[in-house]
């Protein structure tokens, strides 16, 4: 297949910058850029450059291409791009950026294809371009009839795109984008079990490995007796993973089947040494609190908030499959960054990037964990040793006990209260850990930038003290904002209660004029019938502005029974391209908030993570889930991000509602932290 021309090329930021027309040779397909391809059978293929981890990016890509090409999403095949930053720019699912960064290049790509097809039809008919329109997979003219795309692909591909003006379909003409109908493009595959996740990779001749991991933090193998293991049926190899490039370290058992690998691991006799066998998360939270400055800069109302360790616990446990061959390596991985992974593997293996193929599988959840490459590095090490494709599977306990956790933190909030009962000066002192998976996140300024999005007009300082992390820490949905905002909004609620102020009126008064939050706050207050509180219930309110979007949340709870009854959210992402997907992201964040406020936390005793599965990491079940009411406020703001936006305010509002006017002191609500 010869690619005719590359019009648009992604950059590291995924933005549209370069136009490189490649001279046409022969013309059996139209490929205005790497995102859209039409062949002379009329088949339309859209390429999703970033992986779908549940956020629905494949669906939004299909909607954008279908909209601009005047077809239905069912006419489009969505291909998942392999890792290749040269062609696709950044492929990282991070910072709630996918739709924001992809919308312009992908819509432009599809609109370019449409304009070329329309121009080709106009030339064939010898009519003005303005008399032709694209509709239902054909170009139509009031007198000449219609020509299907497949009859125009060759002619369109021969045109010089630089001579054809490209117009995006304006929002008022959208048939698909912004409409509520239509679900996920992968819905049928999902409900029939056909979706292939990373764990479902089955290359021919593939082996399975599980890794005996350190029984306490930082332990390394001392002596390894694998005699029994090697004698078991199906066991192929036992290898020690110790090099920094091998992942987190441990002893891998490679076998013909998963069960044989698990049995092999059980039969290993390993002694371990080093590390921190006495580590205890209760001592860690005390250490953080001790590291607070001796006195607060403000002498007034004060409250300390303690935040726990959290695990990602995606439904699909960590896994990766690799096949290392003499001429290169192929990886099948549920990853949040196939492009970055390919670059890293090429560097580590000392081969050109073209020798590394990274297939981005569907991910059974990610929540920040799959930005890290450690399972892939383990699979590469196992495959290199056995010269076969190897899948490394983490059991649920491996996944929960060897995660990169959301850091613990302690927040001391102080405020000076004015005569009207409102805060007039504030201080927020944070003590926390860095994100060990990305060294720049040891910088207090970066932690502050991630966490501090205080939207209210109360002058004051946020200071961050960083203590060394006693275990691996990483990116967890909303990153530091989840901790910072929980403290800020609950403190504001406490001030409101002390001063006898209405929580909505208080926030409205403190928001700067012209803030986007005014509208979502008013909308959510109306939805929740704020002026008519129900007997026996309590409400909590929180606002958040980040990722170019704004959201206000009201939670309604029954403090007596510790039940969260309803959560209302009003969200402004500018233009919501896929409203059902927008609601889904908010609903998901609310579920995370219910889970973490009501009791899910990771604890460490005698050097090991106590929680091992969904029995003791108490994630919400269907019966804990409140009714969730999401209102989308459409505005003219540029496209905003959403995947992480609703978690911090939902958690804060839910805790305030459960407290029913009493002060909140940390997370989980009403439980000791650590």
């Amino acid at each position, binding site marked *: 297949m010869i690619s005719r021309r590359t019009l648009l090329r992604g950059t590291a930021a995924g933005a549209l910058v370069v136009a490189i027309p490649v001279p046409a040779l022969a013309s059996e397909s139209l490929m205005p850029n790497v995102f859209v391809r039409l062949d002379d059978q009329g088949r339309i293929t859209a390429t999703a450059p970033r992986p*779908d981890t549940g956020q629905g990016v494949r669906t939004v890509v299909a909607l954008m291409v279908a909209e601009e090409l005047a077809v239905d999403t069912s006419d489009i095949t969505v291909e998942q791009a392999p890792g290749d930053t040269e062609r696709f720019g950044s492929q990282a699912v991070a910072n709630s950026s996918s739709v924001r960064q992809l919308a312009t290049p992908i819509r432009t790509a599809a609109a370019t294809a449409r304009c070329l097809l329309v121009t080709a039809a106009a030339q064939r008919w010898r009519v003005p371009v303005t008399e032709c329109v694209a509709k239902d997979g054909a170009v139509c003219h009031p007198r000449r009839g219609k020509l299907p795309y497949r009859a125009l692909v060759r002619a369109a591909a021969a045109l010089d795109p630089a001579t054809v003006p490209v117009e995006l379909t304006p929002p008022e003409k959208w048939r698909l984008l912004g409409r509520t109908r239509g679900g996920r493009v992968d819905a*049928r595959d999902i*409900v029939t079990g056909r979706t292939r996740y990373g764990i479902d990779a089955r290359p021919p001749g593939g082996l399975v490995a599980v890794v005996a991991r350190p029984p306490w933090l930082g332990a390394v193998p001392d002596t390894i007796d694998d005699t029994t293991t090697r004698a078991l*049926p199906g066991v192929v190899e036992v290898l020690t993973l110790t090099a920094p490039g091998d992942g987190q370290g441990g002893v891998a058992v490679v076998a013909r089947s998963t069960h044989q690998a698990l049995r092999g691991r059980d039969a290993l006799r390993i002694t371990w040494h080093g590390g921190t066998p006495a580590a205890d998360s209760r001592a860690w939270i005390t250490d953080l609190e001790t590291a607070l400055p001796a006195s607060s800069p403000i002498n007034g109302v004060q409250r300390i908030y303690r935040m726990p360790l959290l695990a990602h616990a995606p*439904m*699909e*446990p960590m896994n990766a499959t690799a096949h290392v061959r003499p001429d290169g390596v192929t990886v099948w991985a549920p990853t949040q960054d196939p492009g970055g992974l390919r670059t890293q593997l090429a560097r580590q293996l000392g081969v050109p990037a073209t020798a590394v193929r990274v297939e981005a599988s569907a991910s059974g*959840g990610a929540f920040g964990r799959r930005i890290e490459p450690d399972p892939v590095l383990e699979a590469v090490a196992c495959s290199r040793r056995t010269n076969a494709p190897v899948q490394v599977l983490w059991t*649920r306990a491996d996944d929960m006990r060897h995660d990169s956790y959301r850091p613990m933190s302690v927040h001391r909030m102080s405020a000076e209260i004015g005569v009207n009962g409102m805060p007039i000066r504030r201080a927020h002192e944070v003590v926390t850990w860095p994100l060990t998976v990305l060294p720049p996140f040891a910088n207090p300024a970066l932690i502050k930038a991630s966490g501090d999005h205080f939207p209210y007009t109360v002058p004051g300082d946020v200071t961050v003290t960083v203590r060394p992390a006693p275990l691996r820490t990483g990116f967890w949905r909303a990153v530091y904002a989840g901790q910072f905002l929980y403290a800020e909004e609950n403190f504001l609620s406490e001030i409101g209660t002390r001063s006898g102020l209405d929580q909505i009126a208080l926030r409205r008064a403190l928001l700067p004029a012209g803030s986007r939050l005014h509208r979502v706050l008013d909308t959510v207050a109306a939805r929740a019938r704020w002026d008519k509180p129900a007997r026996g219930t309590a409400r909590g309110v929180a606002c958040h502005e980040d990722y170019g979007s704004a959201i206000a949340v009201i939670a309604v709870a029954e403090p007596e029974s510790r039940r969260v009854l309803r959560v209302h959210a009003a969200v402004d992402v500018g233009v919501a391209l896929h409203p059902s997907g927008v609601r889904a992201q908010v609903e998901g964040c609310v579920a995370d908030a219910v889970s973490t406020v009501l009791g899910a936390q990771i604890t460490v005793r005698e050097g090991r993570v106590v929680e091992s599965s969904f029995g003791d990491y108490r994630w919400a079940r269907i019966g804990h889930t409140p009714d969730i009411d999401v209102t989308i406020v459409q505005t003219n703001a540029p496209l905003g991000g959403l995947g992480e936006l609703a978690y911090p305010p939902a958690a804060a509002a839910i805790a305030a509602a459960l407290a029913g006017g009493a002060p909140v002191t940390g997370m989980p609500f009403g439980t000791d932290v650590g």
Partner: protein
Amino acid sequence: MTRYLLRVNGERREVDVEGDTPLLWVLRDELGLTGVKYGCGVGLCGACTSHVDGEAARPCVRTTADSTRTPITTIEGLSRDGDHPVQRAWRELDVAQCGYCQPGQVMAAAALLARDPDPDDEAIEEALRDNVCRCGTYPRIRAAVRRASRIMREAQ
């Protein structure tokens, strides 16, 4: 290694494994039925939920040796074309996010509706209590079970 005869999705399938191999790994590794998802391996998350003798069951906590006498249905065998009322309702309400837990949720919901065609919220929550969804699709699952119930009743 022992030879076992299983009845899976209406077919007789022979496998050669150790008898203590959990049914989950036989379905996934030996029979290629990867719609049956591994989530915890200890019967806590429901991702592998399938039907054994028509009832919702957890293949991760059943041995192969104990699975030879009863018919097993996995998500791949729930319907010929993906149009079981539960699967239709799941699509209509756009339930899935990452989708990983959904085969298990769908199988648990289908088993519930087979014995209770019109479950109330309490019955839905009871039947699906141990099917974890980490994306938080629970409100849509609740609504989709009710929708599936209606689709089934309308078809009668």
